[in-house]
């Protein structure tokens, strides 16, 4: 058995944590896959979940890419695919409940797991116009396990109230959903949601990070349970695979980890 790595960086821990959210024969949706989520999926497939599947926005079903994509929709995600289903059919599979896990990110996240990827300020005359939500506003309801991730845990991201709800979290205006956000993974910690209040709760802090550090970098009152564990570090095997096989060029470092 492989032991835990002693020498690893935050991006490697982050990817290993994302990879652990994919289990067994889970089918994952990696809509905006670049690059962290795809690396995590490849890592899960190489280690504990060889039977896991995925679809990406413009790629094939269960691809075997020869290199990492350089943007969403990079044609490498067609290579070695089982099938090239059209996007409408792929989304249909999610509506029918055939997909298990999905990763989503955004610029602001609040305590109910609402995510903003549309505007800072007002919608009509925004201070900052963000790229938009792609299909996330529906997908967040369709997939049982939605994992929110953000490599930058700070009070600008984790806000009391998002300026705009692009992807709805656990709020009353939602009339139907199969799943929703169950975990939030950042460069500091893993959070989940309290079953009663549906508010964000600290689950574990990454090695070397204190609870206070997480609290100070969160713009709302995070629920702090009596027992906060330490996040499982990446294994030596995971670190070796990330560095030497899956992402030798270090594309993972292009996303900001502060």
């Amino acid at each position, binding site marked *: 058995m492989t032991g835990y790595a002693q020498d690893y960086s935050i991006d490697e821990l982050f990817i290993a944590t994302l990879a652990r959210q994919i289990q067994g024969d889970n089918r994952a949706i990696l809509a905006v896959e670049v690059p962290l989520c795809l690396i995590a999926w490849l890592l899960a497939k190489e280690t504990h979940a060889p039977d896991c599947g995925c679809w990406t926005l413009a790629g094939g079903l269960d691809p075997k890419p020869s290199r990492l994509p350089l*943007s969403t*929709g990079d044609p490498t995600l*067609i290579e070695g695919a089982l099938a090239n289903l059209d996007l409408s059919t792929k989304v249909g599979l999610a509506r029918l409940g055939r997909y298990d896990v999905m990763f989503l990110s955004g610029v602001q996240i609040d305590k109910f797991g609402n995510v903003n990827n549309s505007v800072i300020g007002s919608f009509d005359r925004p*201070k900052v116009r963000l790229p938009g939500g792609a299909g996330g506003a529906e997908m967040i309801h369709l997939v049982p396990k939605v994992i929110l991730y953000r490599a930058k845990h700070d009070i600008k991201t984790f806000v009391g109230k998002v300026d705009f709800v692009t992807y709805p979290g656990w709020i009353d205006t939602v009339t139907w959903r199969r799943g929703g956000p169950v975990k939030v993974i950042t460069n500091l910690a893993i959070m989940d949601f309290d079953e009663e209040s549906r508010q964000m709760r600290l689950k574990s802090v990454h090695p070397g990070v204190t609870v206070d550090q997480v609290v100070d970098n969160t713009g709302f009152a995070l629920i702090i349970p009596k027992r906060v564990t330490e996040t499982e570090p990446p294994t030596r095997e995971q670190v070796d695979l990330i560095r030497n096989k899956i992402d030798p060029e270090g594309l993972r470092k292009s996303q900001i980890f502060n």
Partner: protein
Amino acid sequence: MILKWRPILYNIHGDEYKIAKELGMQQKLKNLSEALEIVKDGNSVALGGVLNNRLPVALTFELIRRGLKNLDIISLEAPFLFDVLIGAGCVRSLDTAYCGFASPTLGFAHMPCFRRAVEGGTIQMKENIGDCFILGFEIGRLGVPFLALRSLSGSDVLATRPEYFKPIRSPYTEEEMIAIPAYNPDVALIHAKQADVFGNVLLEEPGFGLDEKIAFASKKVIVSVEQIVPHEQLLGRVNIPHFLVSAVVEVPWGAYPTANHPFYEVDYRHLEKYLKAAREPATFQSYLKKYVFECPDHSTYVELACGAVTGRQGG
């Protein structure tokens, strides 16, 4: 990396005029300028492709050269073209689900002209939910006026477009749902793999499959292709039949700087250069002048941008 795609340009042979007559097909092969004559100010224009794949760049640049105004642009995700069109002052409204590159090399940065225009209030942003966008064209091509989804509640996007997202109750289960209408835009611009001179088009768009739906749903369709091939080669493989197509233009590298797999891949270096230029209005205008207005055709643009040999181009 860019594949060296050297097209052999097509010459119409005598038999094809005979076939055309027998089958009642018209010759649709045009040059860029002729092909785009049917697009008018104020039209709703759907752009095919997705993100960095098969965007109809040659067709769109010609729209800009023609100086069209007040266009209502509809496209799932075509960040590069949105930005150039908006910067060039052609756009009245933008209906899209995403405008950004989502790339470790280009960043997740927001598109400069797009941001300036939306933040400055000079264009109308109609944010859509990607899944609704796809379904809008799916039902648009089936001739169905609307459909309802149960899985759209909770997002603030709904309230920004009350004329588009309409609450409805299921007549079967009494469930609360949201109705979305079909898309049937005035014109679709699509870049494809091959066509014959009559406008029968072969798409081969693995993994995405939206261009075919866009073509069927739109009132008029203009297609550029990497290659015109003999009619016989496409029999049984046509995705868009000739009677839907107003014009077809042979434009090798017509999606450049985005990819048209397997002919060529994305030119990230040129897109980076574009992003840098677009940061300021003045440098954006220099880009537009150099790469759009001073390029008489698409092959000149590609040769100027990356030095690839693209061959002659119609018109």
